[in-house]
């Protein structure tokens, strides 16, 4: 048992929790970027522009049906073959954003479809253009409904950053592997710490999602 507690040195824990900053950083940047790109793709799918919308929809389906791990590996190991070299942090952000945008596009499309048709018709009848209707009337209502599922996606993102340990990004899980590589007795304590930190972060987020869910209902 003393072996268990030996792992909890301030150097080990400081190093591990330093990875939390990278985990949160990747997640936060990716969710903001994918909200932006996801909204664009979602609106294109919602607008049903002949040919273009169904083309974008099919591409979106393909991305959503691939494993994120494959997309991360592709971004970091295969893109250099085309002459695109991204530093490891930004390769992770790019892969996450690419994948999450496709996920969020579905949520945005669903949110837009949930807005009552009368809102469009009313806004158009009052002389707003298509763009203005979208921007001032429909999107604000749709986003309100989308907050809980967006937070759920953020939880997936935080969990999925652990996959970037596969390309040796020094986020929390990878740093855990470094710590227990020094001493195999550290495996269980390190995994326990990682479990607790991920759990607290994600459970906290899920409580926020629940709070919004209740408030918006």
């Amino acid at each position: 048992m003393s072996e268990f507690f030996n792992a909890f040195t301030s150097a080990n824990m400081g190093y591990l929790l330093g990875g939390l900053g990278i985990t949160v950083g990747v997640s936060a940047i990716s969710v903001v970027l994918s909200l932006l790109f996801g909204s664009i793709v979602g609106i294109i799918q919602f607008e049903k522009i002949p040919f273009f919308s169904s083309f974008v929809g099919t591409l979106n389906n393909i991305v959503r049906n691939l494993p994120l791990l494959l997309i991360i590996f592709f971004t970091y190991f295969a893109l250099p073959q085309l002459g695109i070299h991204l530093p490891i942090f930004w390769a992770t952000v790019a892969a996450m954003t690419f994948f999450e945008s496709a996920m969020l596009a579905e949520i945005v499309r669903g949110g837009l479809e949930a807005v009552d048709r009368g809102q469009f018709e009313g806004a158009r009848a009052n002389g707003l253009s298509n763009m203005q209707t979208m921007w001032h009337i429909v999107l604000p209502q749709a986003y309100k409904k989308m907050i809980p599922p967006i937070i759920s996606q953020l939880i997936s993102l935080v969990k999925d950053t652990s996959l970037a340990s596969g390309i040796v990004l020094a986020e929390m899980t990878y740093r855990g592997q470094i710590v227990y590589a020094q001493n195999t007795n550290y495996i269980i304590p390190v995994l326990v710490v990682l479990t607790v930190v991920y759990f607290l972060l994600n459970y906290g987020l899920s409580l926020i999602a629940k709070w919004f869910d209740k408030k918006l209902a």
Partner: protein
Amino acid sequence: MSLLNQYFSVFVQGFGHTLLASIIALIGSLVLGTLFAIMQVSSSKTGRIIGNIYVQVFRNIPLLIITLFLYLAVAKVIKMTGFVAGTVGLTLYTSAFIAESVRAGILSIEAGQMEGARANGLTFNQAMRVIILPQAFKVAIPSLGNQFINLVKNSSILAFVGGLDLMYQGNLVAASSFDTFTTYIIIGVFYLVITMPLSYYVQHLETKLKKKA
């Protein structure tokens, strides 16, 4: 294309492992997930607490951590290969999500169904099995389908523990052929062969359910 020909048996072997892990984990997580969903809606307080803790814990930690725990810690006591550790990890992780889907399905069935069944002399377990669950599953099918798609994608976690799956074999081919780009494209197509038909089928079911409602 020559890459595909040259390494075809390696890809197929990976595809087989991915499919096998997915099917085993699907069956396992359906059983486990349903059990925990029933615990969450049962009248026993301990049952509800255990069910809730299980679902919250496994939903909120990364699959990779669960798998590493099995492969590095549990495997010291109970011998298991990377394939087994990955598949068990996949089962535990997915069962938490399936429990949520099934629980939502159960809660969507009106309370009168349970009351009627109990009034007619069925026990809680009988009523659950014969009356409630068959209706609940019908409602939960699209969401279960989405969980299965996630399961297939998440099976790529096996690559972290030497699980011989598609992603693992793909990394081997990429390392020996030096053509990472083509290899990963081929791997992607293999995954899509499983996930795309499923995803279109789920969409079809969703629109069918929506029309009924």
